């Protein structure tokens, strides 16, 4: 935990400077090549970004939720591809272990995850199990003391670099739905695991997803994370925390898009004056600013309440729903303000427009967030 304001300010100022001086100048090259260079990854590793949320006892910074979202907003100033590289280590690729791992499991993996020597990946989604995550068909069959995994996972972020997968597989084939699912910590060099070619995507070039295939992959008994049949619960808890992080990243991206729009509107002249002087442009700028501020307030307030121990499950879903839809509208206006130039790859808003589209899809689509929110409302009313 960071706790005091002086330290937090210093940490945020360092991340801000690193993002603006070291990452932003490489955005276009990363988008072009589809790779975040090893030098940039090393820079992020040296800065300590891979350990932001991992507890201090295991070599991380142990950031609170409020601190984590502030970091995510700073990172949002640049392409999501950079954040994605360490995003799984501080989010879905480590939090299952942090929440439900044994001491021995934590000691084995968390320090290396915090240092960025090991990349963690979260393997839940399957070709036929997306929003309906409980319907997954990857099987884990008992074999002596251990387990044998068979199945295919899809869109697995960072899988090409991952050394550790948190894999969700059905251990009880007689239990349909979420109850027969267990979680496993599976090392990449386990025989029988293969990672497919990186997926070709709309945006976020430089962030890689791929299929992960398990073909009679034997794992030891102590690879089980939590108890048998608890896998779905572990997955949902991990995704709960991630919602605020993605909402915060959306706020950061919105801030950048607004700054790009404002700069452009002040420089671009039409009819003899900067387009920022036109009220129809001003309306778009003001709407974007207002919506980004609303999302920022929602995210910070919900993060603080989570740190106080309150149950914010449904509100975190509201934050993800609003912030990711908000940044979609902000990106759309940013392109509109840029006019024809906004459609051209020479301007960052064209890239961000494609990048931010993903936020509304992954770690629970907007529609799944709506269901989470409404179901919590109904459950609350019936209680």
């Amino acid at each position, binding site marked *: 935990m960071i706790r005091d304001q*002086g*330290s937090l300010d210093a*940490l945020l100022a*360092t*991340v801000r400077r690193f993002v603006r001086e070291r990452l932003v100048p490489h955005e276009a090259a990363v988008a072009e090549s589809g790779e975040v260079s090893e030098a940039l990854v090393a*820079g992020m590793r*040296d800065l*300590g970004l891979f*350990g932001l949320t991992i507890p201090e006892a295991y070599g991380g*910074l142990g950031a609170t939720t409020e601190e984590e979202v502030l970091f995510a907003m700073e990172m949002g100033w640049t392409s999501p591809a950079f954040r994605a590289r360490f995003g799984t280590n501080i989010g879905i690729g480590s939090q299952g272990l942090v929440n439900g791992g044994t001491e021995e499991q934590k000691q084995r993996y968390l320090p290396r995850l915090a240092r960025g020597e090991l990349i963690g990946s979260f393997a839940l989604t399957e070709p036929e199990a997306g929003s309906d995550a409980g319907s997954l068909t990857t099987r884990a069959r008992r074999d002596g003391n251990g387990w044998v995994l068979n199945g295919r996972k899809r869109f697995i972020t960072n899988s090409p670099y991952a050394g550790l997968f948190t894999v969700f597989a059905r251990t009880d084939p007689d239990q349909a739905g979420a109850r027969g699912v267990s979680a496993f910590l599976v090392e990449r060099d386990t025989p029988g695991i293969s990672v497919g070619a990186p997926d070709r995507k709309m945006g976020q070039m430089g962030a890689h997803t791929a299929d992960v295939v398990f073909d009679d992959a034997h794992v030891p008994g102590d690879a089980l994370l939590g108890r048998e049949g608890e896998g779905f619960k572990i997955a949902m808890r991990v995704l709960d925390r991630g919602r605020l992080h993605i909402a915060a990243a959306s706020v950061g991206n919105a801030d950048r898009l607004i700054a790009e729009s404002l700069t452009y509107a002040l420089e671009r002249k039409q009819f003899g004056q900067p387009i920022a002087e036109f009220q129809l442009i001003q309306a778009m700028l003001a709407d974007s600013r207002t919506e980004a501020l609303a999302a920022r307030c929602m995210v910070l307030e919900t993060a603080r309440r989570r740190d106080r121990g309150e149950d914010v499950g449904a509100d975190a879903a509201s934050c993800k729903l609003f912030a990711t839809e908000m940044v979609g509208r902000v990106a759309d206006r940013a392109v509109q303000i840029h006019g024809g130039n906004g459609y051209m790859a020479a301007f960052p808003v064209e890239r961000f427009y494609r990048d931010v589209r993903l936020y509304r899809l992954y770690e629970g689509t907007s529609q799944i967030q709506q269901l989470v929110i409404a179901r919590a409302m109904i459950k609350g009313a019936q209680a």
Partner: protein
Amino acid sequence: MKVLVACKRVIDYNVKVRVKADQSGVDLQNVKMSMNPFDEIAVEQAIRLKEAGTATEIVAVSLGAEACQETLRTALAMGADRAIHVHHDGGLEPLAVAKLLKAVIGAEQPSLVLLGKQAIDDDCNQTGQMLAGLLGWPQGTFVSRLKVEGAKVAAGREVDGGIENVELKLPAVMTVDLRLNEPRYASLPNIMKARKKPIDKKTPAELGVDPAPRLRTVKVAEPPKRQAGVKVDSVATLVTKLKEEAGVI
């Protein structure tokens, strides 16, 4: 070998500086402050000397208001071992800073003192030179190459015609230039660890120095706005204009 590094807290280099309405100075209200970039290069060099096994201890010193401690925390997070804050509210001129540093150096006895060649706020470029003069130590200014060899330090100085190579006997004062190195970012874990490193507090009175200003600022004003240029349609017109209007050829 002990290395002492002086770090000044200045307006961040990204900030667009504004002159106060009464022209008494520059507006510092709610302005982001950070370590003088040239001093950051000095801190980085000290850390590299320590990593190379040449330096054994790095002491960072800052003079000024309470907030200078944040600047020192940055130096500590980068890799300085401990820090000294000479607390003084109000302006400090290069001569006062040099005298205060001399007093600190008298107690610390470092073999090498590193400073930025100048601070980006007032651009005085005087403190290092005055300090060397007061100490009676050799000085190397505008240093872009530095190597400690036994009891001597070899340095390359950036001068108009190129690099001047000098050799100085230790102890010495050096002011560093832009091309000496590229400072590292303090890592997030090291920023946290730096909160626990010691900062000694001293006052000018304890050091026996009167820091009262010797100079009076008459007026601070913005430079005049640049006039718009003109386009010419031929080289002949350009030459004529350079001759007749600009009078430069």
